[in-house]
Structures are given as C-alpha cells and as structure tokens.
C-alpha cells in the first residue's frame, strides 16, 4: 500500500477549514471557570435573628462556573469526569456536562435560643464551602 501512505503524507495536519488558533481554543480554560464565590448574608435577612444570636454575618460561599474539558488534577477530579465530558461531547448530549460543586467544607459555630428559652452553643459540620471541584 505504498500509494496510500504517500497520499496520507500529503494531507494537511489540521483541516484547512479550521485554523490553529481556533483549534487550540478548545483546550483553553473557560473564562468563567469553576471557582468559589462569596455570598455574605445576615440572619436578620432570613428573619432568623429571633433565634440565632450569633454569628451576625454568615458567608456559606458557593461554587459556580464552567468545568474545563481537561480537568485532571487541577480540580481533584476523578478520570470519570473526563469520560462523562467525552460522552456529552461525542455520544449523547442528553448526558449532562460535569458540574462545578463544593468538594470541601468548614464548620460553623452557632448560638441559638431554643423554643423553651434555653440557650445552646453548637458547632455544625459542613456549613461553609472551602473548595470546588468538577464532577
């Protein structure tokens, strides 16, 4: 098959319709990349200040943004995330793209007034997002 291999060699590496900058764009990180965002609230906005005495301000933070195609170690994503991305892009777009979600949390101390008038100091797990991931 000498003829085919030589004709193969003549083929341009990149399809002419697609120029290089366009081609590499698909590997860049998205502008609004998946990352942690602040959301400062006070319990009086939720009308909870009649039973939550402290803290006055609470920032639970949240994760938002697009997941890059090559997530890899950057987000601590498992290989499954890239498989899911390939399925979405090449096989079935009804399968959702990987989502930007919290991966780690920190606790919160709360001082509350109980219905019977007693007062409770409690420390709750997983009340503030501290790291995001793509899953």
């Amino acid at each position, binding site marked *: 098959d000498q003829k085919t291999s030589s004709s193969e060699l003549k083929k341009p590496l990149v399809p002419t319709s697609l120029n290089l900058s366009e081609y590499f764009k698909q590997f860049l990180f998205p502008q609004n990349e998946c990352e942690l965002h602040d959301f400062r609230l006070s319990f009086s906005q939720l009308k909870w200040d009649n039973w939550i005495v402290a803290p*006055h301000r609470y920032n639970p933070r949240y994760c938002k943004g697009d997941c890059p195609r090559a997530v890899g170690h950057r987000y601590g994503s498992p290989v499954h995330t890239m498989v899911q991305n390939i399925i979405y892009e090449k096989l079935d777009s009804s399968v959702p793209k990987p989502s930007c979600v919290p991966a780690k949390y920190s606790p919160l101390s709360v001082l509350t007034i109980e219905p019977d*008038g007693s007062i*409770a*100091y409690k420390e709750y*797990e997983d009340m503030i997002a501290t790291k995001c991931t793509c899953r």
Partner: protein
Amino acid sequence: SQASRVEAQITSSAELESGAAPWSLLQPLDGRERPGLLPPLFKVLYDEQGGTPRLQPDSRALRYMKRLYKAYATKEGIPKSNRSHLYNTVRLFTPCAQHKQSPGDQVTGTLSSVDLLFNLDRVSAVEHLLKSVLLYTFNNSLSFPSTAKCVCNLVIKEPEFPLKSLPRVTFNSQLEFQKKHKWLEMDVTSLLQPFVASNKRSILMAVNLTCMKEQPQPSAQDGTWNLTLLVRPSLLLYLNDTSTQAYHRWYSVHSQRRRAQCPHHKKGLPAYARVESAAVSRSSRPRR
C-alpha cells in the same frame, strides 16, 4: 394513567392541606423532633413566616453565653482551633420553677434553700454529657466581699415526688470566688452524670449555699450581708453531639494530621496503584 396520576396528586395535596405542614413530612419517623439547626432550616425552605414562638431567655444567662461564644468562635462563626476539649455543644438552662424550702440566715450568709426544676427536653439522645456546672450570677448592686468561701449543699430529688423527704444524693462543694468574675461556677458533673445519661427529661434539685467572708470588713455590719441578691443558678451542660451534622474537632484534626504525615497516601487506591503513582512521580522528577 395520566388521569390516575392527576387524581393521586389531588388526593396527596388534599392530605397536605388537611393540616400536616409540608416540612413536618421531613421530620424523623420516630416523631421526636431533632433539636438543632435542621428542623428550622426545613421550615424556612417552606417559607414558614416567623417560625415557632420562643420563650425569651434570662438576660444574664444570654450575656454569659455570648461571652462563651466569643471565647470559642471568631466573628465569622469559625470554631477557634486553639481549643483542646471535645465538646461541640454547650446548653444553658434556667430553672423553670423554684419553691422556697427554708428562709436564709443573714448572719452566716446562708442562702435560703430552694428547689430548682430544670427541664432538659432539648438534650437529645445523641448528645453525651462531658461536664455540668451550676452557674450563679450576681446582681450588679450586690455589695459582696471581694473574696469568699462558699459551701453548697445540693440534694437531687424525684420531680415526680418533690416533697419526698429522703434526698436522693447530697453533694458538698467547697468553692472560692472573686467578685470580679461576676459568675460563680460549681462543678456538679459527677452528680448529674447518671441522670443525663439515663435521658431524664427534668431534674429537681434543692440547693443550699452558705458563704463565709475571707477577712472581716469593718464597713459591713458584723456578719450580716445580703445573699438573697444571688440570682437563682442556671445549669450549664457541656455535651459531645455524636450526630453526623455536628462538628467533631478531634476527628478533623486527626485526619488532617494523618494527611500531613503521608501526603502521597491516595485514599482508596490499591497498593500496586500507589507504587505506580510513586514511580510516576519519581520519573517526573528532574534527573540529577
């Protein structure tokens, strides 16, 4: 099937309107409400205006707990990591009833003995008692000697039989305090442990406090000073909430320490995979 589905929806919404608030469907099956943050959060999800009415706490008790909060957490509510103890919950109860048993004695500074009833309904079965303290606060106007020695005689009774003459357990505690603290803490852990552990819903105790001045003060009349200004004591319970929603400091510190000791420890990877990943990291290191 479409019609039957619509019909099912109508009946289920009718059941809801019959009175069961939607959030109550999220309550645990055993019917007992789990104290803590979650039930009110569910109410907010269903936009319950105002929530359940609450009794207002004693202002001195609230001031003490705010002071405790500042000692344990930052302004943003992050638990301070410089604390070594294991409790992640502190509950303060003020007595819901008190009956005078015997008048005090002004000369020796004996406080009138009173029966105090504490309702412990808010303590859940997953909260294990680590320490309990009777907390006396003082009126600001109290002309109290700067230091004094107090002896407390405390008798636990059966709430069901308050007049039962035989005291269950008596407890003497010798304690000293300085006025500048404004609080007098008396450790009653050994006394209350069995009651809280057996999930008692209320505790009735008769408290008799006698305080002797350290050094006589010429200004005050000899021996007479007014103890009745001592405000009735509150009961402080230091608990370890063992539920998953509570923060377990010792666990998180321990797991951070473990992670620091072996950073390459890949969670859940089989041994040969760890060897491979170590090989990979070695090969990616620049050759010498």
